[in-house]
């Protein structure tokens, strides 16, 4: 599937977070890296219409996110970094099933599809478990399963391993790597990009590098050197990005979200 961004710009409270981004994404595995506040999350959110750009347009298989949001969301699944925010229903199986309520499938078909997804992602033993009592790794797996049950063609993952330990990070990355879907992965874990077809480096709302993983990582690392960010205090500072919305970076430097 082709995701096309045409001169996409977006600002929060007058502060630009995307500046005239032009992209065409059709590769199977696409990585997006960049400092906190570089515009990655906003870029990701434009891909399934969660954020509508102030100017320019985003086309998913030729459909404009402004006019075909519902159809696009069926094709483009989204996984957030904070899985807790994505859980809607009290138990595991119910949370996976709720995404299918409008699918037009019969109850038996829905149930079979839920069961298959729970089995595939190691959650079958937790089907009646309260979702909020799962461990962090299981919760992220549930968030992933809840999106995959609708069988989207593209999966956009906004730092899905940020809140996870090494073991769970490996499990989630392995799962993502084995998916047949096209995946757009936003991450700070540079090791996870090996084997990707294409990696974008974002900085101050622009795509400043677009190419193979090794070169992209080298470019990003060079951006993060003190001499490179001397004129931009706060770039690359510690802090957790992600969670729900994509609030604007702190004006005038300081920690960026």
């Amino acid at each position: 599937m082709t995701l096309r961004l045409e001169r996409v710009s977006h600002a929060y409270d007058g502060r630009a977070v995307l500046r005239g981004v032009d992209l065409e994404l059709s590769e199977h595995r696409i990585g997006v890296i960049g400092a906190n506040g570089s515009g990655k999350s906003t870029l990701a959110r434009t891909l399934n219409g969660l954020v509508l750009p102030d100017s320019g347009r985003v086309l998913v298989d030729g459909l404009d996110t402004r006019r075909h949001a519902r159809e696009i969301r069926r094709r483009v699944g989204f996984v957030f970094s904070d899985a807790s925010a994505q859980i809607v229903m009290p138990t595991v199986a119910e949370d996976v099933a709720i995404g299918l309520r409008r699918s037009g499938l019969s109850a038996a078909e829905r149930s079979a599809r839920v069961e298959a997804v729970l089995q595939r992602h190691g959650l079958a033993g937790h089907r009646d478990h309260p979702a909020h009592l799962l461990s962090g790794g299981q919760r992220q797996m549930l968030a992933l399963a809840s999106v995959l049950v609708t069988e989207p063609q593209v999966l956009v993952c906004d730092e899905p391993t940020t809140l996870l330990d090494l073991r769970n990070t490996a499990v989630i990355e392995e799962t993502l790597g084995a998916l047949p879907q096209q995946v757009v992965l936003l991450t700070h874990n540079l090791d996870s990009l090996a084997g990707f077809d294409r990696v974008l480096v974002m900085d101050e709302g622009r795509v400043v590098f677009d190419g193979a993983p090794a070169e992209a990582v080298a470019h990003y690392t060079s951006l993060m050197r003190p001499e490179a960010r001397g004129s931009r205090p706060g770039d690359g500072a510690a802090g957790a990005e992600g969670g729900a919305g994509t609030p604007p970076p702190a004006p005038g430097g300081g920690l960026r979200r």
Partner: protein
Amino acid sequence: MSTAGLYVPPRSRRAVLHRLPAGAKLLGLVLAVGAVVAAANAAVALAAAASAALLHPLCGVGVRPALRTLRALAPFLAAIALFQWLAGDWPSAARVCGQLVAAALLAGLVTASTRVSEMLDLFERLARPLARFGANPRRVALVLALTVRCIPLVASAWRTSREAYVARGLRGRPHVMVVPVIVGLLRSADALGEALTARGID
């Protein structure tokens, strides 16, 4: 974290209630509570409360949900019993408290034996007539589901704020946690809304 009000998977073959449709259980609940209230008799109310408690293990739900309900009700029951006893007589106090306990335990039994998704389907069907007046039955049902989902969310926001408060060496004055809890809940609501939109459940 509290799991009060959530579904309890069947624990034995006796889990008859789990197999009953949600509509039948709700109707049974309304009729049973209506009958206990209409009887207006202390002995009937206390017998109903005892039966409702006994039904928990008998129906494969276990005694924990019943104990949780009773623990949550205890301070209110004490206040109501005291007021009724002072304002009236002890049979009135026993009747009102018995009715309350019976109603709460029976309602808990229905909740513990019914998945939220079954309730969602039921409420969606019940809310269908409201479509004539412009209401969307799916959204009405979703609001009810989200209400249940928000119980652990609120508990979690309160615990997080309390931990941050205590970690900073502060004690007492729990009211100062109200603002951070509300801010946390608003952020969670924002995130939940975005997730619903992303999953196409809006």
